């Protein structure tokens, strides 16, 4: 038998370069004659630009140019478009360099190009921009309030969109029947994605040929090529090459089309020099698209036995100053459609209003809409249990969709393809020792120690998605994926994938799949990604789509290679193709393994074509464009245990158990790594992270001194398990795992904190659970008493 790679915890093939410092990230690349860009950014959240005087900057030795918004507008550079259109969406032009008005702190008003980065940054400080400051608004609900300052004239009342899903009348009918209505007001606060590699671009222009090459930090180089080439700059796509080399984390933030790529390409042509820009972290905080930022009122109609009847959700989504690439989809189709969770709600209605504010744009951040939905549903179900005096596990179990009920039509459009929720729940409870821990919790409370157990039994929808469907919903993109398998004469294989790896280990996991399919050693396979000059068009990696969509494309391309290889082998064996079998790494006539042809024999003959079927093209190469038939629906149970310190209010995560079902696992090392990181980000939101704006629109948590990201001593070793329920509609049954951890963990940790605070009659607190907030909640009775005295 040939070695089977699928399911094996193979060490990653990309790691030798990362552990030796030989990675090749955008800022590591330098070219001869390269000059440097630094951005002049608005210090005001909302202002008109009265004048820009760049004379002092231009007089500085080494400064080559200062470009302003008018330079781009005069050259016919278009604003950056939104890539997802909702009905009656109000769009305000987002120029790479704003010519007249700035709408958030960090909006770009000019760029300095200089011989060194240091000189460019020196010059930024002396570009004199005269602003007329305007009033600003930073909170979504404040922006939609009567009399709020107007951010854009195109969006009266700052309403970017008004969207709803579900049957409102059916919800009303269920509410009329309910024993009890449980209401929660939730703030899902804003986050900054914070990939450790900041964004960077290196633009090159070749005057002979009028061609551009852009190295950039991207999760999806072809999306940039379409947007930059066809929509913004008018560069023919075949004259624009986008290379996304090693990328130091994305988490959604490197999907989008940002201004700086436009500016670098424009300046490269204008100066006829390669132009590099690398964001400082302090720039990243005010220019990378941010995540979450919902204000929600949710009401559940329930029966006293814990039966869930209906859910009504009203959300204000703060969109920031501009609608970035996929922004309109995130709080609508990626949020409202997931409010069903794993339960049998009879009716659901969600109403979402998108608000323009004078803050950085909000778009997809790991999970994108689905963590926000899961937070609403899982907080609600735990609150229902609390109010009814039931165990939160029992309420969940009672309302689960049952295995026999799939495919399951939810009241909010999605059809869940598969699921089996109880085994994952049981495995997680077993791992945690749930019953014993509940008993211990009760004991500890008597001793004045407070631990909390939080439950989240999530489902998510990922693997975006049938192209025709997303088109109907407003996507200005397809969502299929491409694969091209190219076999060399010597039998070595290149796999060109439209998926993009920025930490997910595709070079290993994808090669494992191909090795099994072609029955060749994994060492003979190279996975190629991130270069529009080499790849067929692809849509890139986000929304946990690389395995279910990207690998499905690879599997289908491998089938084509095998079909053709079998015909070549049959010719060499002087047999009919249908009599030839491919096993143990060779082709032979069924029952006659003694006479066989190897993959090498076939590859070589495909290239020589000397002794070859007359009706077959030479070469051994196949392309497949795979359009998924549905989303895929990973699910699982996450259990968080926290301890709160009564004296300080400090909350510490002490255990974390999760059982996820992402279908068949290609590489357990990589899958578990995705879970670890996802959980850390979700836990980070619950306990630590917060993007805070003051009332003037300054981000006051705009550095790593102020924005609390999880550090090593904030985390615990996770206790992980898996169940395996394949997706029924893609060739390998694969589902996604990149976002599950984040989608589920925020709610699990939040539920744990509220559970810990139950003895203090705390029903709900908004995240993040900072020591001060928790301490006040624990002492609120005493504080109220003291105030009365």
């Amino acid at each position, binding site marked *: 038998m040939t070695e089977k790679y699928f399911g094996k915890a193979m*060490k*990653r093939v*990309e*790691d*030798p*370069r*990362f*552990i*030796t*410092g*030989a*990675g090749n*990230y955008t*800022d*590591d690349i*330098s070219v001869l004659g390269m000059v440097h860009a630094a951005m002049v950014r608005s210090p005001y959240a909302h202002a008109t630009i009265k004048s820009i005087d760049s004379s002092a900057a231009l007089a500085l030795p080494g400064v080559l140019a200062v470009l302003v918004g008018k330079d781009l507008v005069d050259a016919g550079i278009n604003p950056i478009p939104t890539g997802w259109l909702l009905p009656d969406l109000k769009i305000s032009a987002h120029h790479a360099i704003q010519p007249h008005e700035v709408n958030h702190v960090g909006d770009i008003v000019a760029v300095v190009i200089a011989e060194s980065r*240091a000189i460019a940054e020196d010059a930024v400080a002396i570009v004199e921009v005269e602003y007329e400051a305007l009033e600003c608004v930073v909170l979504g609900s404040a922006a939609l309030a009567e009399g709020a300052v107007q951010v854009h004239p195109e969006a009266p009342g700052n309403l970017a969109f008004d969207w709803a899903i579900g049957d409102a009348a059916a919800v009303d009918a269920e509410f009329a029947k309910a024993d009890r209505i449980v209401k929660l007001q939730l703030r899902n606060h804003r986050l900054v994605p*914070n*990939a*450790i*590699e*900041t964004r960077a671009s290196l633009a090159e222009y070749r005057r002979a040929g009028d061609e551009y090459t852009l190295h950039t930090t991207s999760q999806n180089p072809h999306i940039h090529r379409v947007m930059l080439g066809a929509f913004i700059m008018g560069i023919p796509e075949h004259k624009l090459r986008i290379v996304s080399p*090693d*990328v*130091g*984390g994305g*988490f959604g933030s490197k999907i989008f089309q940002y201004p700086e790529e436009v500016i670098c390409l424009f300046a490269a042509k204008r100066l006829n020099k390669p132009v590099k820009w*690398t964001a*400082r*972290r*302090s720039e990243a905080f005010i220019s990378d698209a941010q995540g979450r930022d919902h204000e929600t009122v949710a009401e559940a109609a329930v029966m006293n036995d814990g039966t869930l009847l209906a859910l009504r959700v009203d959300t204000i989504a703060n969109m920031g100053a501009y609608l970035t690439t996929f922004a309109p989809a995130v709080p609508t189709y990626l949020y409202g459609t997931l409010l069903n969770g794993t339960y049998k709600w009879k009716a659901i209605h969600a109403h979402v209003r998108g608000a323009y504010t004078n803050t950085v744009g909000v778009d997809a951040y790991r999970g994108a809409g689905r963590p926000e939905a899961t937070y609403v549903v899982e907080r609600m179900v735990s609150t229902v249990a609390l109010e009814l005096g039931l165990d939160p596990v029992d309420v969940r179990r009672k309302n689960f969709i049952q295995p026999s009920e799939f495919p399951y039509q939810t009241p909010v459009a999605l059809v869940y393809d598969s699921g089996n929720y109880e085994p994952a729940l049981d495995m997680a409870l077993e791992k945690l020792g749930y019953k014993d821990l509940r008993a211990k919790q009760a004991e500890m409370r008597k001793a004045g120690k407070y631990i909390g157990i939080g439950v989240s039994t999530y489902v998510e929808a990922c693997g975006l998605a049938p192209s025709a469907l997303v088109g109907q919903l407003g996507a200005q993109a397809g969502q299929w994926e491409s694969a091209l398998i190219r076999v060399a004469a010597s039998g070595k294989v290149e796999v060109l994938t439209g998926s993009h790896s*920025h*930490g*997910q*280990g595709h070079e290993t996991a994808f090669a494992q799949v191909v090795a099994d399919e072609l029955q060749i050693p994994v060492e003979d396979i190279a996975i190629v990604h991130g270069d529009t000059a080499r790849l067929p068009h692809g849509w890139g990696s986000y929304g946990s789509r690389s395995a279910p969509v990207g690998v499905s494309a690879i599997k289908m391309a491998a089938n084509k290679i095998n079909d053709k290889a079998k015909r070549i082998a049959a010719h060499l064996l002087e047999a009919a193709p249908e009599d030839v079998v491919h096993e143990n790494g060779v082709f032979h006539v069924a029952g006659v393994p003694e006479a066989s042809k190897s993959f090498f024999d076939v590859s070589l003959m495909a290239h020589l074509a000397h002794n070859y079927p007359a009706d077959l093209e030479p070469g051994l190469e196949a392309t497949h464009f795979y359009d998924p038939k549905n989303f895929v629906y990973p699910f699982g149970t996450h259990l968080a245990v926290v301890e709160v310190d009564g004296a300080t209010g400090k909350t510490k995560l002490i255990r974390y158990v999760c059982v996820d079902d992402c279908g068949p696992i290609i590489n357990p*090392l*990589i899958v*578990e*790594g995705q879970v*670890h*990181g*996802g*959980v*850390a*980000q979700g836990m980070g939101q619950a306990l630590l992270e917060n993007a805070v704006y003051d009332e003037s629109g300054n981000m006051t948590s705009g*550095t*790593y*001194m102020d924005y609390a*990201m*999880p*550090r*090593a*001593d904030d*985390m615990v*070793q*996770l206790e992980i398990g898996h169940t395996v329920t394949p997706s029924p509609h893609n060739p390998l049954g694969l589902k996604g795992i990149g976002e599950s*951890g984040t989608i589920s963990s925020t709610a699990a940790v939040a539920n744990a904190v509220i559970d810990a605070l139950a003895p203090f009659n705390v029903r709900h607190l908004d995240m993040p659970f900072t020591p001060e907030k928790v301490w006040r909640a624990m002492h609120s009775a005493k504080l109220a008493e003291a105030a009365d005295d």
Partner: protein
Amino acid sequence: MAKVPITLTVNGQTTTKDVEPRTLLVHHLREALYLTGTHVGCDTSQCGACTVHVDGEAVKSCTMFAVQVGGSSVTTIEGIGEIGHLHPLQQGFWEMHGAQCGYCTPGMIMSAADLLQHTPNPSEDQIRHGLEGNFCRCTGYHNIIRAVQHAAQHMSPQRELAQAADD
């Protein structure tokens, strides 16, 4: 800005370069010496991606000017081991899947090397505490902890042998 000459021994190689006095050590390493394995992840000395060893001690190379380390010996990720002769920490990060996007990895390895130098057999808590100056956004630190434990296990016998040879 007037440049001044500095002489540095980096990964065993001594070079003299003219640098602007305001050049940070990390930029000198990356841009003058082309040692791009040392990364920059922030501008407030919080992330640790730029960690290198100066005269045997871990420092964040964004907190020092190049001119401050004239005459010193600097070790970067490129100097700690190489393919075929990996440092036990590099091996540990590979075996235990301690790297995902790889961006924090060099700084993480250099910080962990400093930790193991002072604490050869660290507890999990000591590793967590020892690495709290380094951000990772991908791994949740889970496999980084395991990578350091793996390295510690594989370094201890070597140390004991070396110690025995010294005695």
